[in-house]
């Protein structure tokens, strides 16, 4: 069971790399969906373990929430948003993909060296999970920097949230349920607000390219 969680954690990291290698906005959204599905699986497995050992349903409820929100609702919402503002396929990234991916692998190494200092305190198995999930956060951050379209930046933010969620789940064996719930409410509001802003930016600028947001300087 634990071996399976390890594999999932690596696959989640891999999905972040795949996201970095994607070129089209539709495939960003699908990759994000796949990543969320992996996370939901992970929450499900941990939830079953928790149910057996402590008799609590927290993580299983979280698993259902992820399935509903991150696997079904948010990707659908993003697809709809994109369908409304779509113009044509344009080059969306600032550097070419192999370079972006090399930077990402450097980020993973960096995370590893940062977290290795904690190896005397935290067991090795948790460090492994932390390296994977914290790397997902940094890769999400770098994804936001590397893409110019507003939707790409939203996806980057979602990936950061995914990384945070996995870090929470693995590093701490689950936060109090109320915190998880609050996280989800914040997340869904954030996505709705960003979606509405994308619409308005599209109305005003006739594009969702954030390079055009350069009026305010100094």
């Amino acid at each position, binding site marked *: 069971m634990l*071996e399976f969680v*390890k*594999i999932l*954690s*690596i696959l989640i*990291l*891999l999905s972040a*790399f*795949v996201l970095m*290698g994607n070129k089209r906005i539709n495939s960003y959204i699908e990759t994000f969906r796949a990543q969320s599905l992996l996370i939901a699986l992970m929450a499900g497995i941990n939830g079953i373990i928790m149910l057996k050992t402590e008799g609590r349903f927290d993580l299983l409820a979280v698993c259902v929430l992820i399935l509903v929100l991150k696997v079904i609702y948010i990707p659908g919402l993003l697809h709809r948003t994109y369908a409304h503002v779509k113009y044509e396929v344009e080059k969306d990234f600032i550097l*070419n*993909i*192999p370079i972006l*991916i*090399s930077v*990402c*692998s450097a980020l*993973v*190494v960096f995370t*590893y060296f940062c977290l290795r200092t904690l190896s005397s305190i935290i067991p*090795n198995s948790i*460090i*492994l999970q932390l*390296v994977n999930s914290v790397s997902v956060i940094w890769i999400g951050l770098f994804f936001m920097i590397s893409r110019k379209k507003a939707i790409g930046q939203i996806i980057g933010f979602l990936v950061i949230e995914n990384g945070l969620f996995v870090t929470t789940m693995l590093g701490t064996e689950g936060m109090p349920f109320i915190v998880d719930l609050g996280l989800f409410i914040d997340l869904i509001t954030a996505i709705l607000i960003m979606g509405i802003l994308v619409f308005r930016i599209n109305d005003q600028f006739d594009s969702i390219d954030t390079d055009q947001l350069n009026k305010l300087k100094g």
Partner: protein
Amino acid sequence: MNNVIYILVQIVVILAVAPLVNGINRKVKALSQKRKGAPPWQMYFDLYKLLKKNAVVSDVSSWIFKAAPYIVFATALAGALLVPVSSKLAGSQIPGDFILLIYTLVLGRFFMMAAALDTGSTFGGMGSSREAMISSLIEPSILVSLFTLGLIARSFSLPEIMMSVQNNGIPLSNPVYIMVFLAMVIVLIAETCRIPVDDPSTHLELTMIHEAMILEYSGRHLAFMEYGAAVKQLIFMTLLVNIFLPTDQLINFSGLLAVLLSLILYVIKIIIVAIVIAMIEIKTVKLKLFSIPNLAALAFILAFIGVLQYFILGGGYA
């Protein structure tokens, strides 16, 4: 004595199975297109026919053009000796490790590219430059993957790597092996000129890579070139099946029967992998040349994550 048997079995099995893989591949593709297709053993007849014929050699070419087919075939066969088809036979010490394997194959590739340039035709030059690009992109992934396996086994020799994997339970339940396995699949596809990277059945100049290089060859020379390519393809498949899908640990006795049984299992695994690769070729479209670096980057990342996970756990998988 042991070594002689090993070499004999190795050469016989590899030479016998290599054309079959291509045949199966073509048959599956033909069936997917609702064609009847040639029988899987068609390539044996082709090779036999080509070997009987004389080669036509261009007047402007040098000795490299004539020597290259033999060198390609010889290096492929020499490489094949380093990858045991059955670990039941590999008890004897084989000198050489996977680094030797990789660079033996690179030697053959070098001569193939040099020969393609030799005749001065445009296709040959184009094929060579593309081949050089792909091989330089794929090579880091092969090395990192194999080094990861070597680190886990604490040895660079392929038989020992195979033995250590067999003793460690099911390899594909281990995250490190999964990553390296996926990297190796991409390497296999790129190295054997399969569809997302190259199309072996095309003669369209825009997309040819491997075919462009051997375009000038005919007769005997062509037979050796194609045989060499088939052997090389089988080497990578053997690496894949014998490292990641080991079956020899199931046979808990030794002797002639064990060797035979393990060889039969080996052939079955190779056939399955050949069918799976044909399926991948059916399902995917060929990437444009400038997207191949992205695929190579993916392979590298897989291998890299594998080695990183190994280091994070401090060699905990050994």
